[in-house]
Every structure is written in C-alpha cells, then in structure tokens.
C-alpha cells in the first residue's frame, strides 16, 4: 500500500463527523486506501528473546503481502511495533530457531557469529556486564534493540513502505509485562535515526535487564548513569515501575506508551513477588502517566487452549481462571476491572495483539498452530488512518481511544461507532466525550463490514455453532450480534481513598469481583435486525439506536461476536462469554477436523486454533457522555493535556522528532 497516496482521512478524533458520513455514503469504502482505520500489532517476539523466528522474518510475515518465499501466507498489516521482551538473550536473532523449520535456518547463538557481517549488521562484542559464556553468552536487550532490531526495522521499512516501530515488552518490576514504545529518535523511513531512547528505557527499568553498565563512551565512561538495579520486586518494584512511567511522561509524553498486557495471567498482584496487576496499579500508572499510560491489552497466544484451558497462555490460576471469548476477564466481564476504570471517566482503553512466539507443535510456515498466530493472522488492532500515516499516528490514535480490537477477522477496517445529542450535528466517536442535557435523546450509530473471508485455513463448519444447528465455515466470518455496554461514571477515586485498591483473587473466584455494578448490556442488536448492504469484499451491517441522558455521566462501549446467546459451553444467557476452557467440552466431529486437536477417548475437542477461529469477538472503545455544566471527565482533561503538550511541542522545534517528510499535525 502506498501510504503517501492515501486520501486525506481522519486526522483527529474530533474530525470524525464529515469523514464517517462520507465513508458510509461511499460505495468504494472497501477500497483499502480509503479505509478509515489501519490494522497493526504491537506485541510479538523473535529469537532476540523467546520467539522462534528471526526478527526480520516476523516483520516479513506480518507486513508482507501474498506468500512468503519459503512458504506460508503473509498478513499485510499496515503498521507493526516490534514489541519484544527486555532482559537478554543468547540467540542471534538474525536467525530463526531450528524448531521453526524454515529452510536453511538453525538455532544460532551470538558466540557463533561475533565479528561476522550478517544481513549488513556486524556485532563485534557483547556489550555491558558480561553475562554467560560459550553458547550461553547473552546479549543484553538494550544492545539488540540498538544494534539488531532497529537496523532491521530500518531495512524493512524501506522494503515494505509500512510503518514499523521498535518497541518493547517491558518485564516490569513488581509485575509481569507491559507493552512500551518510545518513538523519539526513530526515523526508519529516512533510513537513519536510532532506538537509543527505547534501549535506555529497557536498560533502566526492565527487571530482567540486570546489566549494571550499559553503553560506554570512547573514554569507557558509562552513558546511562544512575540505574536502580535493586528495587525490582513487589511493592518496591511497583514504585520503580512508576518511576519508569514518570520518566516516559516527563521526557516523551506524546512519543511513548505504556500498556499492561495479559494482566490476569499470573494471578493477583503480590507485594513480595513479580506478578499480576490489581485495579490500583492501573490507576497508579494512569495517574503517573496521564498521556502515556492509557490502556490495557488483552492476551494473545489464542491457539494455546487445550482440554483444561490455556488460551491466552492462561492457567487456571490466572485471575478469572482463564480467558473468556479469548479475552482476559478484566476486559471480558461486564462490570469488571476495565469497567471499574471507565467508571471513573479514566482514559484507559483496550487493545489487543498477537503475542507471537511460535506455532507450538508446528513450524512457522504451517497453516495450523497450537500456540500463537503470526501478527495480522488472527488479531488486529485498528487505529485511525491518516494522510501519510506515520508512527506518530499510531501512538496518537492509541492515545485518543479511537481504536478497536478484532479477532478472527470478524469485522474489517471501517467500523463506525459514534453518538450525538438531539439536534446536534457533532458526532463523537470512541475515546471522545459527548456533552448533553438531562433527558436529551442520544443517537448511537454503528456500522461495520463483515469480510467474506478471514485467514483461517479451515473450511469446515464452526463446531461451536454446529451444536446449535448453524453451518458457518470457519474461514467465513459471521456476526451474530453486537452488545452496547453502558456504565455509570461516578468520578475519579483518589489514591488511598476507599475503593482505590481492590483485593484480587486467583482462579474463577477472581471473575466474581464486580468493579462497576452499574455496567450492563444496555442494548443487544442481532445482526439479523441490522441493515445489510453487500459490498465488494463483505457485507456491511449497520444500525441506529437511542439512549436518553439521565442526570449522571456514563459511557457506552461495544463488542460483537459470532456466538449466539446461551450457546452451550460458550456464552451465558445474557450473551457474555463463558470461561473458554468450556469450549473443549464441545466435540469437533467434522471429518476435516485437524489431527492436532486434543482428544477425549479418541474424540477431538474444540481446542487450539480451531477453538480460536470458532470463538470470535471484537471490542470497541467507549464513547463518554456527560452533562452540560458538569465537570470535565478525566478522559477529557488528559486529552486536553495531550493537546497542550502538542502545542508546546509545536513551539519548540527542538522537540519535534517525527519520522515524516511532512508535519502530520
């Protein structure tokens, strides 16, 4: 896709009115160049850490088109953030692992390649504090970010003309993991720049990076001084994590993000260990970084589900006991942790990514997987498109909340989800706030295209739907209904005030915790009741509904699925997803059900990638509503803070650091 030839599209969330109306009227909306949103992935791995394929190979498969030269589909994402772990690694990530079964690729360690020029990159030494020896000699991640991954980002940016970003999956002191990116210094489109700021963050704040030295100057003097290499655990670790968030907020308030990921996986937070997140930690992060810590990412690893769960790489000890409709319970539960944060009016938005490591039992070129999907294959995070779409549009879009997350290709790149008041022409979209009067009618409009096909390799009927008599091939997405979920906004809870910290629980007991009791499925719209229009590559569905403003602020968020209400072992009577481990109680009886599914008494069960393709959901971020004359919500205040920082940035050209041949503002 030639990004420079795109029509002028959404340049700011507040400009959505004319644009979305135009899109709805546009018969050519399926044309990708005019898509209002673009798809990406920000969380994935390679052999620099615990992935199975080379850093370049992941990018090739994620953003390339057609078929990879050695086989396997490419997935043509519009943007890609290389979000790999911090710490260190002993494998040379210019090579894929033997287990990936890619021709000519064998597991290769740094010890085997030092001094050689490979892919135009020469590594002469492993820098920093020596770490391991022989084949176990490790390269600290700050070095591989600077000297391996960023040069590969530069190379692939020109090759594909896509937006590529060097990021990080931060191994967080006191917690588990967080997606981070620092754009500052990265100019891959200009074939220059560096990821030094990203690397410095990793060195300073990743608890797996215990290097005490970091890079040195010509005089062997330490460049990044003052690292806290002690407080990496429990409550002290959380404080160090907050220091990291504040570091980003103070230095890169518009050029970085901090998004906790698979946050339920390791169970509740422990004050003496490194695991989990309770609601107070999200609040702490958002308070410390109002323009950088604005979200939560639902888990990847969607094909790991077996007979006793495992999708999302969640064990029964995760908060919630596993995933629900392939999402963690924090985001999947109506009234859950996310609704608790939205109930404060906070700018905390939901995102999703692949968490690609490997295909489990399979090689990287196989169409099946028992572990992860390649970025763009199953999971897509949509952010607003823009003229000459850039890395800053990715971060600006994420920060705005005008994004949505889609699994299994359930809907495409043209979601319209917006609201306006009575007699008002000013539509507000995801992440924005509509201001109305008590009793005023609020019109909510939604449209989306269900594509004719997704990337599933399976053409047999969805076994979860077959049990209720529906014949829906797994490679042809279908939408059953959309939920509009509302919740009251009762104001920001101050640190230390009652309700700020909420004790959490491992397992299914954690799913019982209600953080926002007012949250409810306020409207449920069956696809059969929506207006249908056949488009070039799918079917557009749309509907309009109304709400009446009361006396209190609230929010409206949306989700959709292919699964009807009350589907045995999949959804409850209200339509909410059940614990995904239950899916494995359903048999896969079609003769085409693949050999890698887990079995009970010789009968294949809905597990692994078949489970993921069968149980499909999308999530759209909230539209906020408040009354005229009422105090602004925190989401508005933080959006204004971002705008004021941007204006300040405009006045200080030294701070401009965009990788564009234009000013995107």
């Amino acid at each position, binding site marked *: 896709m030639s990004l420079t030839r795109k029509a002028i599209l959404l340049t700011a969330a507040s400009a959505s009115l004319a644009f979305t109306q135009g899109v709805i009227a546009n018969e050519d909306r399926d044309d990708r160049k005019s898509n209002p949103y673009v798809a990406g992935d920000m969380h994935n791995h390679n052999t620099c850490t615990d992935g199975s394929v080379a850093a370049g190979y992941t990018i090739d498969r994620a953003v390339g088109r057609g078929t990879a030269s050695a086989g396997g589909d490419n997935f043509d994402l519009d943007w890609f953030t290389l979000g790999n772990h911090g710490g260190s690694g002993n494998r040379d990530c210019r090579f894929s692992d033997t*287990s990936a079964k890619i021709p000519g690729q064998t597991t290769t360690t740094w010890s085997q390649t030092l001094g050689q020029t490979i892919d135009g990159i020469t590594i002469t030494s492993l820098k920093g504090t020596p770490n391991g020896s022989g084949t176990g000699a490790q390269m600290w991640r700050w070095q591989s970010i600077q000297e391996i991954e960023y040069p590969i980002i530069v190379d692939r940016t020109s090759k594909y003309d896509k937006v590529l970003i060097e990021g990080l999956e931060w191994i967080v002191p006191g917690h588990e993991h967080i997606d981070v990116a620092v754009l500052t210094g990265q100019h891959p489109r200009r074939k220059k720049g560096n990821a030094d700021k990203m690397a410095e963050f990793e060195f300073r704040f990743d608890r797996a990076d*215990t290097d005490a030295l970091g890079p040195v100057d010509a005089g062997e003097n330490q460049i990044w001084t003052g690292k806290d290499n002690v407080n990496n655990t429990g409550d002290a670790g959380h404080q160090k994590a907050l220091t990291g968030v504040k570091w980003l907020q103070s230095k890169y308030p518009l050029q970085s993000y901090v998004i906790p990921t698979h946050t339920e996986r390791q169970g509740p937070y422990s004050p003496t260990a490194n695991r989990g997140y309770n609601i107070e930690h999200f609040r702490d992060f958002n308070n410390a970084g109002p323009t950088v810590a604005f979200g939560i990412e639902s888990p990847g690893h969607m094909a790991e589900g077996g007979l006793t769960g495992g999708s999302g790489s969640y064990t029964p000890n995760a908060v919630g006991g596993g995933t629900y409709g392939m999402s963690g319970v924090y985001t999947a539960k109506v009234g859950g942790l996310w609704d608790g944060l939205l109930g404060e009016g906070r700018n905390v938005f939901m995102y999703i990514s692949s968490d690609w490591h490997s295909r489990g039992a399979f090689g990287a070129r196989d169409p099946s997987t028992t572990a992860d999907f390649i970025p763009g294959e199953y999971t897509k995070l949509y952010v607003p498109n823009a003229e000459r779409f850039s890395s800053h549009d990715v971060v600006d879009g994420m920060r705005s909340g005008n994004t949505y997350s889609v699994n299994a290709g359930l809907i495409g790149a043209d979601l319209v989800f917006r609201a306006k008041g009575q007699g008002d022409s000013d539509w507000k979209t995801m992440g924005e706030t509509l201001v109305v009067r008590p009793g005023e009618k609020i019109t909510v409009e939604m449209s989306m295209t269900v594509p004719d096909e997704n990337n599933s390799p399976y053409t047999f009927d969805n076994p979860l739907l077959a049990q209720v008599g529906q014949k829906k091939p797994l490679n042809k997405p279908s939408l059953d209904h959309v939920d509009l979920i509302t919740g009251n906004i009762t104001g920001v809870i101050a640190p230390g005030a009652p309700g700020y910290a909420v004790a959490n629980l491992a397992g299914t007991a954690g799913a019982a915790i209600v953080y926002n009791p007012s949250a409810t499925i306020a409207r449920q719209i069956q696809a059969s009741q929506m207006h249908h229009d056949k488009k070039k590559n799918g079917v557009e569905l749309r509907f309009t509904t109304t709400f009446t403003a009361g006396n209190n602020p609230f929010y409206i968020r949306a989700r959709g699925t292919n699964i009807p209400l009350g589907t045995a072992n999949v959804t409850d009577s209200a339509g909410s997803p059940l614990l995904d481990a239950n899916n494995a109680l359903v048999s896969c009886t079609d003769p085409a059900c693949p*050999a890698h599914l887990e079995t009970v008494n010789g009968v294949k069960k809905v597990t692994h990638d078949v489970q993921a393709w069968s149980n499909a959901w999308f999530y759209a971020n909230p539209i906020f509503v408040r009354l005229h004359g009422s105090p602004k919500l925190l989401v508005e205040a933080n959006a204004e803070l971002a705008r004021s920082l941007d204006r300040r940035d405009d006045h200080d050209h030294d701070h401009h650091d965009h990788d564009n041949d234009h000013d995107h503002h």
Partner: protein
Amino acid sequence: MNSIRRDAEMRPAELVRICVMRRLACFRIGFSALWLVLGPGCAVATSGAGASTSSEPTLQECKTAVAQAGALAAELPPDNVSRYFAERHLQQAMVEAGNGEFDECLEMAARAAEQARERRHELPPGEKLKVRQADE
C-alpha cells in the same frame, strides 16, 4: 571487553550438532539441542550485574522441571504424538529459560508433563500429524 569476545568465540562443533539434530526434530527433540537454546552459561550474570532480590523461580528449578517432564515424555514410544507435543513444550521451556523467564519455563515444563501423563493427543489409525519440515 576483550574477555567477552574470548568467551564468546564461535564453536563449530556446536553448529554440526544442531544440523544433525534438525532431522530428528520431527518427532524427537534432543536435549543437546535444547542445551544450545539455553546455553551452558545462561543467565549466570557475572560480577557487575545487579544482584537479584527476587524470590522468583530459578534456572536450577527450571532445569529440574524440564528434566522430570523429559523423563515422563521419554517413557512414551518415540513416535507417540503426545510425546512430540510434550517435547515441543520442553523446547519452549528452554527457550524461556534462555531469556531468563524461569516462571514461564516452569509453566511450559508443567504443560509437557501434563501432556505426557494424560496423552492428550491421540491419532486414529491412518491419521497423521503433518508438520512441514525445513527441507519441504
């Protein structure tokens, strides 16, 4: 820095071993290959690195769990599909250890042990698990 370069010199014998093991990876992953993924000096940060104050799982616990799960898997016939799945989990366990993520190493080792004990994968007569090999 010279001492680092000396430690990390290339070892051709290791390369030969990987290439040999590649052909066996279809249904059996040799632990010598896993050892390369992890490396003998893995995560042994020498003096100068920050001291860990964590009570997190250790490399030794990871190695023990992998060895135990590997022994369970080895009790299954070499061509047993559940053994293959278990050994793929063990491969990932060692990769996680190589990245210093010993908790995830333990998790993958537990999955391998579960797979081997419960034989969760079973192929009916005539059905095969088709995994594309590097030379295909």
